């Protein structure tokens, strides 16, 4: 009897290839690009062309062929367009490896909800898929850009997120809460022309830009500048390396500073019957240049400089928040702070949260930034060498 069962079990193992996924039959989608045009929605699959990837090759292309291909079709709905693209592919499109979705401006203006719905429901698309916006027709911009620093366009996007160069917004960020659902910031990928960017003199290259404000799944004006985007990144605790300069406290020159990371604490408090969101960025910065006569050895001057940095940070954060708040888009989902801390009051205002957020919620910023290191020299180059000589 036992032998019979074992042999039966062995027989069962023959069915192991039922759901087989042959590597040679797969087209792994590296980036999903979605645009809207007059005929409907255009879906583009960015696929690494594995047949052109010769082993051992590390440069852009091997044996003359392209290593990354774009396949696109237009249809009235997202799903129909995807089916049409699949119809053009000789391999089965596999979206399980996809980590990036890029949308065009017009699509974002009319609403990114179809993408959010598809990504959330389809078990093959992960909820931490990154979203980007191209200020223009995404497919055209992406397809014509030259990729120089990495092998594939997708690697650049992945590195931007990994190194916190760009703001990271995932599918999940749009669906964190009901009251502010569909609100978020979409980082913009920039395609610079020939005079600026990663490879000056060549055709357009990829870079990061500002960020677009999305309210209830639709793009709303204005677009945040790169500086404001950095402030937004900092509020979301994503700001990594950041260079900036501050006017010197002593005279007209300026002081260059560098911060490796910003830690932001956010909370909600009730003051005089009004709710305040308290944002507290803390950071330790390094001085990397001193184009003034300021002396880092004098504690009072350093203290003054720290106050200036705090002011600068407060101002940048406040300006950014003001712009975002005026649109009524709760991109940082502050409603969740209110929900957990003041559930009673929350129930009263949750139905008109966006109006409350826009008109009544106070946002206070209290930066605390310290100068940790003053660099390798004591006095500035100017005061030590140039002005010294002038005195002679």
């Amino acid at each position, binding site marked *: 009897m036992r032998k019979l*069962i074992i042999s*039966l*079990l062995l027989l*069962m193992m023959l*069915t192991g290839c*039922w*759901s087989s996924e042959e590597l040679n039959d797969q087209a792994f989608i590296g980036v999903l690009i979605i645009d809207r045009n007059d005929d409907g929605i255009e879906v583009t699959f960015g696929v690494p062309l594995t047949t052109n990837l010769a082993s051992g090759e590390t440069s852009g292309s091997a044996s003359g062929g392209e290593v990354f291909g774009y396949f696109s079709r237009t249809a009235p709905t997202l799903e129909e367009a995807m089916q049409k693209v699949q119809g053009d592919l000789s391999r089965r499109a596999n979206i399980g490896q996809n*980590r990036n979705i890029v949308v065009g401006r017009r699509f974002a203006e009319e609403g990114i909800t179809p993408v959010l719905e598809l990504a*959330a429901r389809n*078990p093959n698309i*992960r*909820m*931490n898929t990154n979203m980007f916006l191209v200020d223009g027709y995404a497919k055209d911009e992406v397809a014509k850009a030259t990729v120089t620093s990495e092998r594939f366009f997708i690697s650049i996007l*992945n590195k931007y*997120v*990994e190194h916190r160069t760009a703001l990271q917004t995932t599918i*999940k960020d749009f*669906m*964190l*809460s*009901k009251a502010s*659902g569909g609100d978020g910031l979409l980082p913009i990928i920039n395609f610079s022309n020939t005079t600026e960017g990663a490879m000056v003199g060549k055709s357009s290259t990829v870079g990061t830009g500002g960020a677009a404000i999305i309210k209830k799944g639709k793009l709303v004006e204005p677009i945040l500048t790169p500086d404001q985007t950095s402030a937004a990144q900092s509020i979301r605790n994503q700001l990594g390396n950041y260079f900036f300069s501050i006017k010197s406290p002593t005279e007209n020159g300026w002081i260059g500073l560098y911060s490796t990371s910003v830690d932001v604490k*956010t*909370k909600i408090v009730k003051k005089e019957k009004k709710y305040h969101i308290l944002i507290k960025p803390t950071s330790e910065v390094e001085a990397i240049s001193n184009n003034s006569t300021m002396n880092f050895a004098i504690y009072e001057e350093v203290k003054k400089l720290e106050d200036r940095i705090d002011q600068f940070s407060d101002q940048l954060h406040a300006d950014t928040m003001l712009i975002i708040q005026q649109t009524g888009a709760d991109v940082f989902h502050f409603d*969740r*702070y209110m*929900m*957990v*801390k*003041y*559930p009673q009051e929350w129930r009263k205002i949750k139905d008109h949260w966006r109006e409350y957020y826009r008109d009544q919620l106070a946002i206070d910023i209290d930066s605390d930034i310290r100068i940790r290191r003053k660099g390798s020299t004591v006095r500035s180059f100017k005061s030590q060498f140039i002005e010294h000589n002038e005195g002679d």
Partner: protein
Amino acid sequence: MTTKVVTQKQMYKYFTIHIITTIIMFMIGIVLQQSGYSAPLGVLIGACIGIVITFFSIAFAKRRPDAFFVHYGADIVTRWLHYPLMAFIIMTNFLLVAINLWEIQDLLLQFYLTGTPSWIILGLCGLCISYMARYGIKSMFRAAEGMFYLSMITFIIIPYLVHSNMEWFLARGFATIASVKEAWPTAYHLGSIFGEASLILYIYPYISQASYTRKTTIRFTMLAALMVICHLIPILIVLGPDLAQNLNYPELDIIRLIKSGSYLETLDPIIIALWLVSIFIKLSFILFVISHMLSRILKLKYSKPLIYPICAFIIVSTICLAQSHTQFFSMHNGGVSTCVYISQLIPLLYYVIDVMRNRRQQMEEESL
């Protein structure tokens, strides 16, 4: 007399796995939909309900520690009542296995084995559990002993792996938002799962050092409740209540949120494999209990030959159970828990009648 083959430690480990696998694998989505922030409170109340039910079973079993309930039950309530009641309990356990199998194949088909016919998956799962059940009562408890630490590690490691995604300020909601009213649906649903420990009654003669059973029950129920809460809290803190409520498998989704680029990014198949083993252990135990009861009712000497036919029957009924997820849930919400509660509380009826009879006998003896 039967040999006492199941130790208290084995029972502790087995029932911990028995309770947490189903809850964490399949129930977390429903629990969050019903209770949101109140879910942990619901788990605790459910655990208390489970302990009460199990204590009744144990108290009843203690009256005849060396005999099987299926045997002596007929002496308490007459054969005409005993057999239909046993049939009801058997059918409920049947349904439990079928529901679990259905959920396993649904999960596997949706995420991993797209394209495989469901009867193949069910057939293989059925073969595994019936093979294990055939080895007798010892096999499940020994397997549970082996699996216990492994599954505990994964159950602990998941919350740790997603800790970078946690938004701690959301934790305040457990104190401010949770309410008993919201927690109740969860408590009711999970109470029936915690109450499954009352199956101890059917294997009581196999348990060694039976006097410690109650203590063990408290220990494994508390551990299981703690493990479930350890999973609910990260899900709520990572995803927030609104998003978590909208997911069918929030547990899988938070595993998939593990930072991209990390080599543990594709951890979910490993977790699924471990879950499957744990749930197989559970299902073989229920299958064993069913076959055991049936063989006693049919007055067969051995229960082994019954296992394959029962399993085949379960698999066929599972295939016919539901054609779609929606159909399955519309059926599942409609009273399966109540059915399970009734089957768990049937021994209480016996207990009451038994106590009353004994009293009357005593009184009669005294009056004589």
